[in-house]
């Protein structure tokens, strides 16, 4: 195993397969529809969605890493965004302060969820499902009570810059950046780096993974598993809130429907990217690639004017085929040799 060159190992990972598929797909799309390269109307919105949904995927990934699920990602996003919206709308807070408050709210709701799971030992699916019910009731009620038209619309300074501006408006000595890349990628890249670092380089990330691998053994190895469970859910809530806020900045206001579309996507990204549902492995880059793949496909179908019914049917089939292909590849590999843990780093 040690003798296998790293490159050869890498070629067998889900990440490489994803990169290859994405590359081929983009090539085909560009050849058939040169307008795919339209910066302002295709690439920038596509990259914005990829940015937002990567954060959504990471929000799920952090709980998958301990072998849990977060069915309430969408509602936690709505909750965090709601708090940010309130702080702009009702308290006229500046952008950064409002975002921080929103993130704290997401962290808090995640922490409460994690605490309940750790305390009761009840399956995370149940607790987060119940949490999603509760928030599904709470969030619209708060919006109705505190806003006219059920939306928080006050935009603090910098709001549009974060959500709707591209590098085209970042100019240095007459040179401006590409219009295809939204500014939003900056915070998202930072988040990816932080989460990646957490899992690959720090004790906390490793302890999350071991908790996901075997919670009893983790507790018996001196890992404070209850705290790690709370940590994973807190991270999940925070990231969900961040995704909700980013989405709000990209569409323009805060509404209760933020996050409605998060739950299913949140699983697709990490799972296509190679994170195990059973816990114990994660891949930040894989999550990003998994999200990218599905969104590129969606964008491609959209460019070809595929209708809503065909779009759903195709997305479902592609998901199945992509995962079966991954299965087949995995089985082939298994047959050949014994994989190692190092092949699935963060």
């Amino acid at each position, binding site marked *: 195993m040690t003798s296998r060159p790293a490159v050869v190992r890498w070629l067998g990972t889900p990440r490489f397969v994803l990169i290859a598929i994405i590359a081929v797909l983009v090539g085909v799309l560009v050849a058939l529809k040169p307008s795919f390269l339209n910066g302002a109307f295709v690439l920038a919105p596509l990259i914005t969605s990829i940015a937002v949904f990567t954060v959504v995927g990471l929000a799920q990934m952090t709980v998958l890493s301990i072998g849990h699920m977060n069915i309430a990602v969408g509602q936690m996003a709505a909750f965090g965004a709601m708090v940010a919206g309130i702080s702009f709308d009702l308290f006229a807070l500046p952008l950064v302060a409002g975002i921080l408050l929103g993130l704290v709210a997401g962290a808090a709701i995640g922490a409460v969820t994690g605490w*309940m799971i750790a305390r009761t030992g009840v399956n995370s699916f149940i607790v987060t*499902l*119940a949490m999603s019910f509760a928030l599904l009731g709470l969030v619209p009620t708060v919006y109705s009570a505190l806003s006219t038209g059920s939306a928080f619309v006050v935009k603090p300074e910098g709001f549009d810059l974060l959500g709707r501006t591209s590098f085209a408006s970042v100019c240095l000595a007459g040179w401006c950046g590409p219009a295809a890349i939204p500014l939003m990628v900056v915070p998202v890249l930072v988040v990816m780096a932080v989460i990646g670092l957490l899992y690959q380089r720090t004790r906390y990330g490793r302890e999350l993974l071991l908790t996901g691998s075997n919670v009893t053994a983790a507790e018996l190895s001196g890992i404070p598993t209850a705290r790690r469970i709370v940590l994973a859910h807190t991270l999940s809530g925070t990231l969900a809130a961040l995704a909700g806020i980013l989405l709000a900045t990209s569409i323009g206001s805060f509404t209760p429907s933020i996050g409605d579309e998060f739950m299913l996507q949140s699983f697709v990204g990490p799972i296509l990217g190679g994170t195990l549902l059973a816990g114990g492995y994660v891949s930040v880059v894989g999550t990003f690639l998994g999200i990218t793949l599905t969104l590129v496909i969606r964008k491609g179908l959209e460019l070809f004017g595929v209708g809503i*019914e065909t779009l759903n*049917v*195709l997305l479902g*089939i592609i998901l*199945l085929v992509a995962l079966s292909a991954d299965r087949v590849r995995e089985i082939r590999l298994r047959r050949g040799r014994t994989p190692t843990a190092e092949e699935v780093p963060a």
Partner: protein
Amino acid sequence: MNGGRRTGVRALLRSQSITLVVIVVAGTVLLGLASGGDLFSPVGVRTFFQFLAVPILIGLAQMITVAVGQLNLAVGAIGGVAAALAAVLMADVGVPPLLGAIVPLAVGLLAGLANGWLVVLTRINGFIVTLATMTILLGAQYALVGTRTVSAANWEPLAAVGRATVVGVPVIFLAAVAVAVVVALAFRYTRSGRRLLASGDNPEAARLLGISNDRSVVLAHAASGLLCGVAALVSLAALPGVNQSVGGDWLLPSFAAPIIGGVSLTGGTVAVLGTVLAATVVRLVDTARAEFQLAPAWVNFVIGAVVLGTVALDRVRQVRAERRRGAERAEDARTPETVEASR
């Protein structure tokens, strides 16, 4: 000593259903009073039970997949497609209602089989498989009915069954109860039922006992799909028409009923009575919402709170039971020592 502990466990199990029964009775009485008796009027009774049929059926559909250790995210999509196809066949193709009634069942069964086979053949997690089939089926439902509502007038004989009552209780509710009884009997008295539970409880042990987990998984998904088909048939009979929204709100209630009803998500258990009772509790919350004219959002809030409460309560019980066991042992341990000391 075993006997004693066992009755303890039984009592615990029983108390889960008893808690639900108490909630149902108390809730009914309170609501009845609040409504000034309207709840018990013929219309009140009929309305209450009419909308209990589908929650029971989809709760059972989910319960069966959970029993084998799987999930079925496609309950609503299966039901939606099943109802839509039947509606379109009857309204546009002229399929007679009697034949049309079989369509949802067949669609449900086939969709469930497809889910099961996909899980078994691809070895992809059932959560993801049903997520994918859900997406596909939603597309299919839209392709079938688009944005129109196919009127129930196209299947008047079925709609008549939907309206029919026996001593004031809707026939569709009685049908759902009958299905629940069949499900309960199947899990109690058939080998397939026991095998399914064994696979859900401990797949490795089941395999070593000669049980095919693959078969159990396929069977569970097929049965789950079939029940979604029954729910679709009930919807067809009871709804004023069928459109692309049918099934759209099934997913969360399908989980709420078995979970509140005491089914373990790790597989291996069923609680038919619990599921039926839990669906009834949710229906009571619904009725209360209408009575007190609260926003529908409150129903979600209350369901969330009830599930979290059930979870917490269960845990408290468990901890108490453990403590009791420890205390008993300490008591046992103390006695001989005192004997020794007195020697």
